[in-house]
């Protein structure tokens, strides 16, 4: 795999977005249950070579967002509204066959749990070559040396032997590397990584993140990073979207967001992670309550019941996402910036 020099793949801010998500709304409907809106009007852009984070707790809609863009939500029981424009085409409006042609070729995805995400009864090699067979029209034998190079590239030692190994014969970190190799096989321009390090040991997490960072820099692939872990965001993302209850509550450039979070939720998330440079024994501050306490967005701020500084308006009115100077914020009573 070589980085083809067709277009300069650097994340210059002025560049046209590669993926432009507008007003994405995903509603699940089950018989006998109230419809549940998991993603509620999410909009964001990803430029070539850029790494964009979608951050939030479990249930905030970040994974559903990625599955909707990939067209991987179950065929029934849900409705997807809005647009996801990739290179001029609305992916959400594509017929399933055409979307199938693009998946794995233009857009690829890396999943959370590497063991369950790999087919247990198929050798690693075939799970890599099948992507090349499908999208490059290669014969399996011709694809094999390429698969070997891919495994080598993602840092799997002894790749020749690993081609014939089965997933259970690999370690957790190697499995995730193998999944990354499969995703990168056709040199996609957009990669979506859904919690790629959550199931791994801390030391392996760091290795995988470094690998992703290197690959993104080398190939100029745009990356959407979905995570609940702000540590991952800090090391990797250019821009960060913080999701709460299916809506974006804050967006900003990584350094600005970390230095001066404005939304109480973002600041709560930051306060709840331990810091190496913090005072020893300094207590962690968790965000009280859980997503179960949410208010409906239609008439309030969903986060209000858990907020550290709610005002009266928060439970009576829907806050809007206000954009200014590259940042966006959905809050009536933002955190004061203290510099």
């Amino acid at each position, binding site marked *: 795999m070589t980085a083809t020099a067709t277009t300069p793949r650097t994340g210059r801010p002025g560049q046209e977005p590669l993926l432009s998500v507008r007003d994405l709304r995903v509603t699940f409907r089950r018989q006998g249950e109230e419809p549940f809106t998991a993603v509620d009007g999410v909009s964001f852009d990803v430029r070539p070579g850029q790494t964009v984070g979608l951050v939030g707790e479990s249930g905030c809609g970040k994974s559903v967002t990625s599955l909707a863009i990939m067209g991987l939500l179950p065929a029934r029981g849900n409705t997807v509204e809005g647009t996801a424009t990739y290179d001029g085409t609305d992916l959400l409006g594509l017929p399933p066959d055409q979307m199938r042609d693009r*998946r794995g070729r233009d857009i690829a995805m890396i999943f959370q749990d590497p063991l369950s995400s790999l087919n247990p009864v198929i050798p690693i090699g075939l799970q890599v070559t099948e992507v090349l067979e499908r999208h490059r029209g290669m014969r399996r034998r011709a694809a094999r040396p390429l698969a070997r190079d891919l495994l080598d590239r993602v840092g799997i030692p002894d790749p020749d032997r690993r081609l014939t190994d089965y997933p259970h014969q690999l370690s957790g970190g190697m499995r995730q590397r193998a999944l990354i190799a499969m995703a990168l096989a056709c040199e996609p321009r957009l990669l979506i990584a859904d919690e790629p390090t959550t199931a791994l040991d801390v030391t392996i997490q760091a290795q995988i993140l470094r690998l992703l960072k290197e690959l993104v820099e080398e190939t100029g692939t745009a990356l959407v990073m979905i995570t609940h872990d702000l540590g991952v965001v800090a090391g990797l993302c250019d821009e960060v979207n913080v999701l709460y209850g299916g809506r974006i509550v804050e967006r900003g450039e990584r350094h600005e967001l970390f230095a001066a979070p404005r939304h109480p939720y973002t600041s709560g998330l930051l306060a709840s992670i331990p810091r190496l440079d913090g005072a020893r024994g300094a207590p962690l501050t968790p965000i009280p309550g859980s997503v179960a306490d949410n208010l409906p967005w239609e008439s309030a701020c969903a986060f209000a019941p858990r907020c550290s500084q709610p005002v009266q308006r928060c439970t009576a009115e829907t806050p809007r996402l206000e954009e200014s100077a590259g940042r966006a914020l959905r809050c009536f009573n933002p955190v004061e910036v203290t510099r």
Partner: protein
Amino acid sequence: MARFIIRRLLQMVVVVFVLSLMLFFWLRSLPGGTVSAILGERATPQTRAALTKALGLDQPVWVQYWRFVERAAHGEFGTSTRVLPGADALDIFLSRLPATIELSFFALLLAVVLAIPLGYLSARRAGSPLDSGLVVTSLVGVAVPVFFLAFLLKYQLAVEHHVFPVSGRQDNLSCTRVTNFFVLDGLLTREYDCSVSALKHLVLPSLALATIPFAVIYRITRASVLEVLGEDYVRTAESKGLTARVIRGRHVLRNALLPVVTTIGLQTGGLLAGAVLTEKVFNWGGIGNALADAFEGRDYAVLQVLILAAAMIYVVINLLVDISYAVIDPRVRTR
């Protein structure tokens, strides 16, 4: 692997030993008995005593059992008293085996060919009218007694409307016998009319016999595919943009068929062990017929051979199932 197979074969020896013991005592504790079955109720006590002694049935059961084991060690399993008086019990079993294997094979083929695709389809469209209809059909399939269905099929399609033959394995065509699998024999000797006749005779009994295996295999396939469809690796396969055909065959079915293989194996064992009722209804002349006749006439030697052989077949098929597991599932192979 070799050690595994040897261990399983040793297990089989234990199974057969325990079963033979139980069988031996149980048969001899049944009311009636060989002598009454042969001579009828009106025989004089003298005749009865003489026959009892001649058959060795006057000895204590322990002694009889020891004799049976001793003879069995030399490959002698006794002579038939009722099914084919005077004939060697093992020969009876061997001569009846092809008929039963042929019937079981076609019944199972029918069941598998229908059950796996329908089970897959059902799972893909879970909750649809098609799925619900198939689930109900499969329930009826298990619930209807096989002999009743066999009678129904025979009456409607053979007796009333002569679509298929009433009973037996073949019309009287003076066919050449090679393997005693009639369909195969016809093909081998190029007497194709013999094969056709055998196939026609096979339709109704296979259909009757296939219902339960079909229902069971269908249900297992459906449940298993449903489970695999929700697995993360299927989503991964979808995310790679693979064609529906590759996802279906390579990623879904291959994993989903693991439990199905076990089920097919167990069902095969059940079929070969004797489709007593179906064979009786269609007068098939296989193991099932022989078993029924032997039981009626208290033909101890034949009963012992048939039941022990059935047990062995069952264990061997289970072993084959386990081996096939290792072939399909690499996780079992390396364990």
